[in-house]
């Protein structure tokens, strides 16, 4: 597994555990009321599991297994940028739910995530090709 995929997948495993922890708190709170602030964890729970767990894992595995040129994976810089941008965006989106004065944060978070996945698509596009080059 290449180094970048290790970063993507390990980050996704961490997000899975943090997302599951928040989810467990939310579910337990339905059974026995813990604290009124627990419900404010819901956006973070969703973001961590959708973007953090599912999307980062998918991109990490895609970087690893998509067709290559001999041993080369093409221009890796956009894929590294994707890792950085998606993580930054994710934390901005999560923080936005807890910092009501910073309304722009959600916009910035979503924009960084969108830029990140666009950068990854730019990297991956030429790798989506037949195994035998014509």
């Amino acid at each position, binding site marked *: 597994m290449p180094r970048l995929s290790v970063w993507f997948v390990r980050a996704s495993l961490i997000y*899975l555990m943090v997302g*599951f922890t928040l989810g467990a708190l939310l579910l337990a709170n*339905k*059974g026995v009321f813990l604290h009124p602030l627990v419900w404010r964890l819901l956006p973070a729970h969703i973001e961590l599991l959708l973007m953090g767990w599912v999307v980062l894992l998918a991109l990490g595995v895609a970087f690893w297994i998509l067709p290559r040129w001999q041993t080369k994976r093409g221009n890796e810089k956009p894929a590294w940028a994707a890792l950085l941008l998606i993580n930054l965006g994710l934390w901005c989106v999560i923080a936005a739910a807890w910092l009501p004065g910073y309304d722009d944060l959600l916009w910035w978070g979503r924009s960084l995530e969108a830029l990140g996945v666009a950068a990854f698509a730019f990297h991956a596009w030429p790798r989506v090709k037949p195994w035998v080059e014509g």
Partner: protein
Amino acid sequence: MPPITRTYVKTALVYLVLALMGGVFVTLRPVAQLVPWIAAFTPLYFHFFMVGWVTQLIMGIAYWMFPRKSKQQPRGSERLAWAAYWLLNLGLVLRLVAEPALTLTPLALWSWLLILSATLQWLGGACFVANTWPRVKEK
């Protein structure tokens, strides 16, 4: 495909069908207002899809395809992989029972079953991460 992966993938497919059936059920809410507990199926619908289908499918395929941990234990601990499977699924099934039941009758039993469900699912995720983490490494 190892037996654990087959079990994960087949169970994931069952959850996909159940989740989409749940989706149909949830749409009945406006025409079945006399059944208040239908609302309790909305979070179940999402979680059967995201945990039962997506996450469980990933867990099964990752166990099969991720880099080998070692020659002695190429796929890590089989016990941990089975533990993750049973904990996650037991937690999900408990939620299927307890969440709508709590809407119908606010018994302490249902509340504690929900807490148990949350704990079991968390432990299932932890077992999966513990078993998978050492396999996520550079060649």
